[in-house]
């Protein structure tokens, strides 16, 4: 029965198509628009510091915001196809190695909030998902998020974003596999295993299939929640980048954090692990460090360490993991990020 207040599906699709076309047109004309705005409207001089900075900001801000809205919406819709219950069913009883790969991939698309890390962990483990596979999921879910990827793409190009995605998945897969090999089950708090549920079809196992209308709403809700929370950091990050772009001479701190300082990667990882910030919030810092001559690889490793591991997370996990397991978990992941940091520097 069609509701009389909501627009019909064909109408929605038409609106969506029109929206995409408008988006694309705007996107393609951003560079020209920013040049026109900076030099014709605001009357700044080409080649001046202020002119450079303003043009950069006017170009990058709408560009990144538009990308963010589009991607967060898209991922929100994709996520509506996945639930933790479904992921658990896909992973239960899987052999390792394949399980690790699947878990890492699913970690990127299953809706995940760090407050649910513990219920999710327990739910997986008691349903027969191997410990190492569960870890692969827990590593990829917070670290590889679409906000980070969009921002990296918007600011540094698809190669950087692609590397971050690819190597992030590699870390999740290998670290999870290693942790599985170490047979650390005895370091999980015993009461967790007391709840062996056998992966029953708990209430709302997959839920009733969503209609497309509901999926679209999942997308728009995601945009409202996520973009609504991070837009200020994004603009801040771009502003910092714009300032650096226009004013700071290159390589101010190259000797300390540049490619040649081999210990910059371990230092970055060491600093980043206990810190917590969301992906958008760390971008201003990333821009600032880069502007001062830090190597891109070192900075990306720092970003992974900050987003992927944190002291608050360790504290939350303490409820289900013994300290030795937490330490091993963090150690293995940090080690992975370290290697990837060197790899980044070598490749970029």
């Amino acid at each position, binding site marked *: 029965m069609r509701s009389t207040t909501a627009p019909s599906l064909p109408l929605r699709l038409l609106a969506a198509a029109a929206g995409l076309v408008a988006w694309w047109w705007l996107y393609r004309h951003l560079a020209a628009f920013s040049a026109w705005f900076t030099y014709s409207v605001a009357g700044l001089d080409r080649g001046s510091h202020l002119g450079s900075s303003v043009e950069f900001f006017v170009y990058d801000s709408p560009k990144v915001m538009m990308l963010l809205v589009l991607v967060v919406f898209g991922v929100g819709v994709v996520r509506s196809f996945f*639930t*933790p*219950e479904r992921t*658990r069913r896909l992973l239960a009883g899987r052999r390792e190695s394949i399980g690790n790969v699947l878990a890492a991939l699913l970690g990127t698309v299953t*809706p*995940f*909030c760090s*407050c*649910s890390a*513990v*219920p*999710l962990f*327990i*739910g*997986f483990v008691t349903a027969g998902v191997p410990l190492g596979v569960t870890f692969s999921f827990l590593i990829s879910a917070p670290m590889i998020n679409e906000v980070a990827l969009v921002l990296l793409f918007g600011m540094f190009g698809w190669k950087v974003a692609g590397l971050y995605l690819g190597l992030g998945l590699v870390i999740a897969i290998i670290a999870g596999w290693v942790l599985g090999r170490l047979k650390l089950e005895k370091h999980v708090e015993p*009461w967790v295993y007391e*709840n062996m*549920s056998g992966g*029953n079809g*708990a*209430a*709302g196992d997959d839920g009733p299939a969503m209609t497309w209308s509901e999926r679209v709403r999942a997308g728009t*809700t995601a945009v409202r929640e996520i973009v609504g929370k991070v837009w200020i950091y994004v603009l801040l990050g771009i502003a910092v980048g714009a300032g650096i772009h226009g004013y700071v001479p290159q390589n101010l701190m190259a000797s300390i954090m540049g490619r040649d300082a081999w210990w910059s990667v371990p230092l970055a990882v060491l600093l980043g692990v206990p810190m917590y910030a969301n992906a958008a919030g760390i971008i201003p810092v990333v821009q600032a460090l880069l502007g001062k001559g830090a190597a891109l690889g070192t900075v990306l490793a720092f970003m992974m360490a900050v987003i992927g591991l944190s002291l608050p997370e360790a504290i939350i996990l303490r*409820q289900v993991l013994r300290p030795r397991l937490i330490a091993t978990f963090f150690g293995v992941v940090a080690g992975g990020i370290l290697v990837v940091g060197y790899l980044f520097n070598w490749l970029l």
Partner: protein
Amino acid sequence: MKKIQILGTGCAKCQNLAAVAGQAAKALGAPYELTKVTDLKQIMSFRVMSTPALVVDGVVKLSGRVPTIDEAKQLLG
């Protein structure tokens, strides 16, 4: 009397769910009792994997997101 339980360890979404559930229950007019469950072991006894979760008279109705007030009214139904 309807027994409404909000499962969650205390992040912003759990507060939102509690607020929405409370409003929906008031709108429906029936007598209700709303409690927040923050103890992990208790939350796990419901076999939920993502918080926040809405439990009505012992049955998990929704987990992992905050519903609209209309949705909540239907779930409390």
